[in-house]
């Protein structure tokens, strides 16, 4: 059966899942056993590793979603194989991005409470991150309500494209408008080898987990569409 064959087509396979799990465990070991405790902030700095890892990957996945939306719109929202794949990948990356965004928006204030003495402050990077998170949440809501309608998909793709410049502004917000957000990575703050290792392992671990989840969701989306199309075809044949 066609749908059965499609099951393993775009899936991540067990190897990537095992690799992602191993990377998370190694990263956790590096964060808690290799990286030393930061002198000023103390133990709370350990939040930083996965918080920044999730933030970087959130931006990567939202960017991918925006690029997918752009390609979908360029292709005129056709029902071809490439357009369908790009559209499915767009939904999957948006979902993973929103999940990572939720992690960032929860772990960030926990760290900020200890580091800045407040849960939340309306500084440029935080405000923009929240807005972009809400934008992609709106994208997913739109997709959920419009289902397989071409118009709804196109509007959602447009929404994802709108998020692209906002992502650029999140990246450069601290440089352009200031704010309390630290620029540890760009200003060369990670000088201790243990901290550097823990940081890069965390970013890699989050990336592998996110990629695995995004590929699973893409596969599911494509399968669901295939099943829907086959149901429609069968119904049409019944009517004949």
């Amino acid at each position, binding site marked *: 059966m066609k749908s059965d064959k499609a099951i393993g087509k775009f899936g991540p396979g067990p190897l990537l899942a095992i690799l992602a799990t191993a990377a998370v*465990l190694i990263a956790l070991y590096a964060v808690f*056993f290799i990286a030393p405790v930061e*002198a000023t902030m103390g133990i*709370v700095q350990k*939040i930083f590793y996965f918080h920044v890892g999730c933030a970087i990957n959130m931006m990567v996945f939202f960017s991918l979603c925006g690029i997918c939306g752009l390609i979908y719109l360029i292709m005129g929202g056709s029902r071809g194989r490439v357009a369908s794949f790009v559209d499915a990948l767009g939904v999957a990356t948006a*979902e*993973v991005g929103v999940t990572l965004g939720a992690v960032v928006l929860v772990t960030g204030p926990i760290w900020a409470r200890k580091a800045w003495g407040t849960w939340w402050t309306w500084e440029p990077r935080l405000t923009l991150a929240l807005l972009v998170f809400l934008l992609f949440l709106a994208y997913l809501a739109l997709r959920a309500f419009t289902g397989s309608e071409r118009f709804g998909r196109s509007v959602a793709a447009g929404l994802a494209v709108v998020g692209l410049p906002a992502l650029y502004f999140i990246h450069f917000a601290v440089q352009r408008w200031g704010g309390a957000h630290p620029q540890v990575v760009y200003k060369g703050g990670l000088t201790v080898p243990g901290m550097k290792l823990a940081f890069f392992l965390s970013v890699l671990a989050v990336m592998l987990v996110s990629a695995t989840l995004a590929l699973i969701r893409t596969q599911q989306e494509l399968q*669901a569409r295939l099943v829907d199309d*086959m*149901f429609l075809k069968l119904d049409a044949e019944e009517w004949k």
Partner: protein
Amino acid sequence: MNIFKTISAIFAWVFAWVVFCLPATVLAQNATGQGWREGQEQIQGDTMVVAAYMALWLILLLFVLRIASRQRTLKADILELKKKIQKEEQ
């Protein structure tokens, strides 16, 4: 249950156990003075770290559960489709 599912289940269990318990275990060691050799001891900071990592894995777990739920729905749909096709062929 086939061997792949059993291995996956064991793997997931070990993963969940380590991921949820590692920060708490390490911080408990720290509190009793056996863990960290450097830095300062901050009880409130410890709580914050555990809370942050718990939130992180909880959000991830919810997403994975959602994926699993969708997979179940999809499998049910495929089964229904197969039945429908068989009916059509008869």
